């Protein structure tokens, strides 16, 4: 199914019209909620052909972790390994498993680790920023982490928001882990918080073993898209192709920013199940592919692709990697590829 300015149209006609818009647009932003590998590949390919900017609705939610990774580094643990091996867990933030409750239930399915030197111990959890002895307001968590890191390294710190006794208690708890795991949701923190947390984990590894387990929650699609973009372009999205080579700018290349400034002349939005209407949808012509529900500002051209036969490859949080699903291809990649093919002849 396809629509041109709200009128039901033949898919081929809509593809022609969309290709025309794309070929005439000076700066197209390509964004949305692409989450499976084929769709992301097709979006990147189209972005390169039209010299546009490729972004993702979930970029911000994953950016603090990607930023800390590239500026300080990180020690990561695979969830399945943490599930078997970690005896002491530090949960950071009010709800590190928000939007990922299944992951939490699966990680904590058993009473404790069955692998490695912690095997047979009961699992123990310290929740920094959650209800209980280490409850902190959201804005205090960074301070709490800083106190903890200073305390672990024998450096002084003030006695608030955590009391000195609490800091000592937490440090002893962490140091006593056979294998410890620090869980946090990158979307809840800024890059400096995550960098601090990564430093804390590195420090803990001087004496025992520790790893971070970032929970992407609803941003899993963006993280998957960032991975694909990275192998294809060298950069994790927010990348411009206008000059024929990829240019990464994590702030200026936000689709919303380019629309707000009036630079973008067209937007192409692909929607997964998590799709929502961008607040800029009324400000420029939009080609919308897939996604649920009607928008307040109807797109210039819309496609509701028929589900394609076959499977798709998505990021799986329990696996911290790509897995193949036997079904679920939604046809978006096919529409994007058809556009790329049309533009290949128009713009060659």
């Amino acid at each position, binding site marked *: 199914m396809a629509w041109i300015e709200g009128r039901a149209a033949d898919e081929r006609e809509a593809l022609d019209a969309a290709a025309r818009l794309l070929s005439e647009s*000076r*700066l197209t932003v390509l964004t949305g909620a692409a989450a499976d590998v084929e769709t992301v590949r097709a979006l990147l390919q189209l972005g390169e052909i*039209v*010299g546009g900017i490729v972004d993702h609705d979930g970029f911000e939610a994953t950016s603090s972790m990607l*930023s800390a990774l*590239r*500026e300080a580094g990180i020690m990561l643990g695979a969830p399945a390994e943490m599930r078997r091996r970690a005896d002491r867990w530090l949960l950071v933030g009010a709800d590190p498993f928000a939007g990922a409750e299944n992951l939490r239930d699966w990680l904590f399915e058993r009473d404790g680790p069955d692998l490695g030197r912690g095997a047979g111990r009961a699992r123990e959890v310290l929740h920094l920023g959650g209800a209980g002895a280490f409850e902190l307001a959201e*804005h205090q968590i*960074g*301070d*709490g*982490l*800083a*106190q903890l*890191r*200073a305390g672990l*390294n024998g*450096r*002084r*710190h*003030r006695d*608030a*928001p*955590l009391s000195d006794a609490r800091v000592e208690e937490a440090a002893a708890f962490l140091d006593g882990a056979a294998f410890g795991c620090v869980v946090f949701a990158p979307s809840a923190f800024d890059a*400096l918080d995550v*960098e*601090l947390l990564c*430093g804390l984990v590195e420090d803990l590894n001087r004496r025992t073993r520790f790893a971070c387990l970032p929970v992407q929650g609803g941003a899993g699609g963006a993280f998957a898209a960032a991975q694909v973009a990275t192998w294809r372009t060298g950069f994790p999205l927010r990348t*411009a192709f*206008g*000059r024929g080579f990829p*240019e*990464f*700018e*994590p*702030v*200026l290349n936000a689709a919303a920013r380019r629309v707000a*400034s009036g*630079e973008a002349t067209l937007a192409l939005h692909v929607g997964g199940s998590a799709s929502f209407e961008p607040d800029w949808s009324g400000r420029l012509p939009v080609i919308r592919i897939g996604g649920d529900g009607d928008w307040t500002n109807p797109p210039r051209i819309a496609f509701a692709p028929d589900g394609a036969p076959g499977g798709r490859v998505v990021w799986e949080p329990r696996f911290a990697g790509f897995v193949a699903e036997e079904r679920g291809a939604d046809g978006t990649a096919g529409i994007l590829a058809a556009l790329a093919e049309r533009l290949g002849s128009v713009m060659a």
Partner: protein
Amino acid sequence: MSALTFTLRAEPDQRLDLSILTPSHLAGLGEAEIAALPIGTTRELRTVGEVFAVAMGDLGEIRFVGGSERFDRIGEGLASGAILVEGAVGSRVGRLMSGGRIEVRGHAGLHAGSAMSGGFLRIEGDAGDFLGGPLAGEMAGMTGGTLHVRGSVGKRAGDRIRRGTIVVGGNAGADAGSRMVAGTLIVKGRAGATPGRLMRRGTIVAGGGAERVGATFLDNGVHDPLIFRLMARAFAAGPLGEPVLDGAPMRRLGGDTAALGLGELFVPA
């Protein structure tokens, strides 16, 4: 001889990469060649001549008449000479400059003076986030020179700087002086929350105090104002050409002990 002058014809329809308009890149080029240089960043090519009226002149002094928030990368890598912008600039003005002088008579965007190693950059208006700081993934911000913003600046001013001096006349956003390795950041106005997060060494002065100071900064007591009078004099005599501090006593906080902890943050006593 008068300055080589680029007069903006109209607000550009896209961000421009103006890094090519420095003396070292333009040396030996004639007017027609300069006018043909590509500066657009979208697939619709824009050349210098389409965006600017060019008046040839002394390469040692480059002048932009009219500015825009879309003027990116002005004076990038400048080694010598002077650049004057009569208007606003976009991101990365003076990035990686090692010498010379850039003056912006308007506001600046992100990453002004990013990783500059020498020279003097002055912004008459406000500046955006990451003043003097590194780009994504880079391990060092400013390593030398002087950066002066008369207005206010965004968050994380002076991020990861290793040497050099930044003076902000107005206020600073959150996390000023984040991850400083050394060097000096002076904010005459008020600093946002948690200045100096993860700083290892270096000096931050928040003349109007800070919204909130992190738990890993420790009070070292009120500091002798003599040092501030000396610093004020040094600024007046240096490239800044004006005193910065009023010599009032200040309270010294040492931190960030979550990192190395050898930095200092001064707030009013």
